[in-house]
């Protein structure tokens, strides 16, 4: 019976599910609700305070020592385009029209959201991504194999790949300024924001700040903190005065962290990785044995055929020899008879 790869993984997934349900809780951590590292840090972006000055983009560029931008940071005409992050830009601010038309336009900052349970990290099989206890999701280029699974896994389409680098291309994304934060400094974008549209602090405090703003200005804000629960929660949080859909933010993500969604299938990965050698060696051994037997059989067959052929040949030869002998005898007899008859004739003619 042919087994497809899909079917095999399906069985393994079911087996893994059963083992986590009934078995020992070794891999069960992914199915438990993880509320993040205590006191982990985060950033709150308040779109009602953002004025769209692009200073955060400039600050990010400076502290991360990124190449100069295509258009200078004080050129605000780029806001009319819908931009995304790339290998040279870890954050962009886009402008959106207010759904009600006349009020001033709205802005939204885009960068890595630093999920509490990052999809990129769960998809990475070499563990190049780490969720630090400070809250950032950091990347280790030294172990990365460049499979780009993280790019497919990220629901926010954040990791980018240095396709233009022939040697050692890396995944690039916002680090929430991890190196600066552990030194006690503010992230580049937060430090430079003139309007304090970005607040930095403990994630749990940021939620309190966001709630307070919603309570104080119920008409100004949507009663929702984006990132509090989205994808199991993110370290970046957002406030908005319009439904987040109007800022082109995904509202279809649900509240389940990515690793939980993929835990079943992904828990099979180590199993697959572990089983393949055994399986392949087995297959190799089987095929090897098959070959050996076949060779033996062939040899036997050849031998017997040869034997048979030899016997036949011998018989033929002996037959031929016998025939030849017979013919020879007959010929001799015939010759003797002929000679005897000739002698008799000569005698008769001489006698007459």
């Amino acid at each position, binding site marked *: 019976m042919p087994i497809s790869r899909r079917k095999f993984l399906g069985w393994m997934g079911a087996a893994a599910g059963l083992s986590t349900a009934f078995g020992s809780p070794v891999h069960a951590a992914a199915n438990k609700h993880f509320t993040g590292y205590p006191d982990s840090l985060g950033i709150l972006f308040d779109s009602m305070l953002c004025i769209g*000055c692009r200073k955060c983009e400039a600050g990010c560029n400076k502290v991360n020592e990124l190449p100069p931008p295509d258009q200078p940071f004080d050129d605000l005409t780029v806001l009319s385009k819908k931009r995304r992050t790339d290998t040279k830009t870890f954050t962009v601010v886009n402008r959106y029209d207010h759904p009600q038309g006349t009020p001033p336009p709205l802005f939204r900052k885009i960068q890595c959201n630093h999920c509490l349970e990052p999809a990129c990290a769960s998809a990475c099989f070499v563990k190049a991504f780490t969720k630090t206890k400070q809250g950032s999701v950091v990347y280790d280029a030294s172990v990365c194999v460049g499979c780009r699974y993280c790019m497919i896994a990220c629901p926010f389409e954040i990791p980018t790949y240095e396709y233009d680098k022939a040697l050692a291309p890396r995944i690039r994304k916002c680090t929430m300024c991890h190196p600066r934060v552990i030194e006690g400094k503010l992230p580049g974008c937060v430090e430079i924001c*003139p*309007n*304090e549209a970005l607040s930095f602090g403990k994630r749990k405090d940021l939620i309190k700040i966001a709630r307070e703003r919603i309570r104080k200005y119920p008409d*100004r804000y949507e009663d929702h903190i984006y990132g509090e629960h989205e994808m199991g929660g993110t370290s970046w949080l957002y406030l908005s005065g319009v439904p987040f859909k109007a800022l082109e933010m995904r509202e279809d993500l649900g509240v389940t962290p990515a690793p939980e969604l993929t835990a079943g299938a992904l828990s099979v990965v180590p199993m697959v990785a572990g089983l393949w050698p055994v399986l392949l060696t087995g297959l190799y051994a089987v095929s090897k044995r098959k070959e050996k037997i076949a060779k033996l059989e062939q040899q036997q067959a050849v031998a017997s055929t040869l034997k048979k052929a030899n016997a036949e040949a011998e018989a033929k030869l002996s037959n031929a020899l016998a025939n030849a002998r017979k013919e020879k005898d007959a010929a001799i007899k015939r010759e003797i008879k002929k000679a005897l008859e000739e002698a008799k004739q000569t005698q008769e003619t001489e006698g007459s």
Partner: protein
Amino acid sequence: MSVLVLALCIEAKDTGEILDHRSDLITIDTLESFGDLERPEVIFLHDLHTEALEKSNKDCRTCHLSEKSSKDRLSLKFKRLEDTDKKQVMDVYHAECMGCHREMSASGQTSGPIEVCGECHKENTRLISARLPMAFDKSLHFRHTEANKDEKTNKGNCALCHHEYDKTAKKLFYAKDKEGSCRYCHMKETQDNRMSIRLASHSGCIDCHKKAVAEKKKTGPINCAGCHDAKMQQEIEKIAEVPRLERKQPDVVLIQANNQKTKKDDRMSGMNPVPFDHKAHEGYNDTCRVCHHASLDSCSKKCHTPTGSKEGNYVNFESAMHQKGNKKSCLGCHEINKNQPNCAACHSLNAGNPMIETSCKICHMKPLLKNSPATPMDEKLMAEMLLKSRKVASSTYKDEDIPDKVIIKELAEEYEPVELPHGKIINTLLNNIKNNTLAGYFHAEKGTVCRSCHHNSPLDPKPPRCGSCHGKPFDQGNIFRPGIKGAYHQQCNRCHQELNIEKPTSTGCTDCHKTKKK
């Protein structure tokens, strides 16, 4: 009963055909009350039909029958007085509609569908209802009173429209000085013999307009578009200064919770009474219904009692007067008023929305007399006296006490220190609310206007510097307080945004900050 469609949205994705926006769409789905419809409902264009009938010298009676009660009053139903049963109603429509269409086309005129079901019962009519509700405001009320004045007495003929219902005699009668909004009795849906507001207004208004048309007098519309079309509504004549509506209403009222003098329940009696300028508030609103939402009787007598009652949906007196976000309450309406740019400039600021301890006293004034007023006359007198004693002017300190320019240098780094035009800002803020009485009451105290920016500081001509409280951002001990840079920018930007100030722009750094010379 055919029902007017408020918003009939028909998708036009497939063909891209231009949709017709009309204010006269009537959905004929009467049969729905007898069970599920077999065919799609019919979208009927009322104005199209009245125009066609007019051309052939026919009038409303072609389709509408006289009511039993009065020959002049026409039923709003089509060719019948009652919805008896499914078969009969259906037959009325089919026979009468198609009969007329046939007659018209026989006489060579363009007419509606005959016989093919799908021509009337269409799934997708490519029509969108653009019908707007019609508001009968003070201006229209005044024009109606003027137009219907009694020739002899030269007084308004209120009885033409206003009436009460006598339950025992089962008759309508007119009660002088009891006039109220139609909607107090005529609700959204018909109840027993009380017509819905829709029926009442259509039969009442149109019947009267029709009569005037017959008499060749200037009158209001009799077609749908005349009242319900956006363009036509704008063409309705507006009186700029509507004279006061006379209904023996008070000029001033002394509002107090313990009006009923119930000694037992005096939980609210601790609060001082509020003198209310009723006459002024009449001018601020388009209809009485804005405040008197259910009747013109006293708010607190039956409904909004000090502890709430079933009639008042258990909204107690305090809530009825102070509920936020509700235009019917005093505080609610005042708060909504603060959303206009000149007010929002300060009141929308992160800090500039204080409910200061003195606010309550501005409405709840200390009685000038020792004894509480005994008679309604006394109450009126006291209210008048209290209103007169109020200070109504936004004011602030003397010019010489107010710095004209303030240099902000704490943050100067990339740029030169900022020169804040302090005096100009105060003048602008004060000028913006100069003619606003409501603002006048609440900003009479010197230093109140200063608090727009110098929030939380004592009312004093020398408030503390911003930097005394605002320092490094994201202070763990004070998570809600912005840092100094954020505080300045948020404050300036928000106010400029509300007042629509074009320059300096929020993103133009050098509009305020001069670049440092190197």
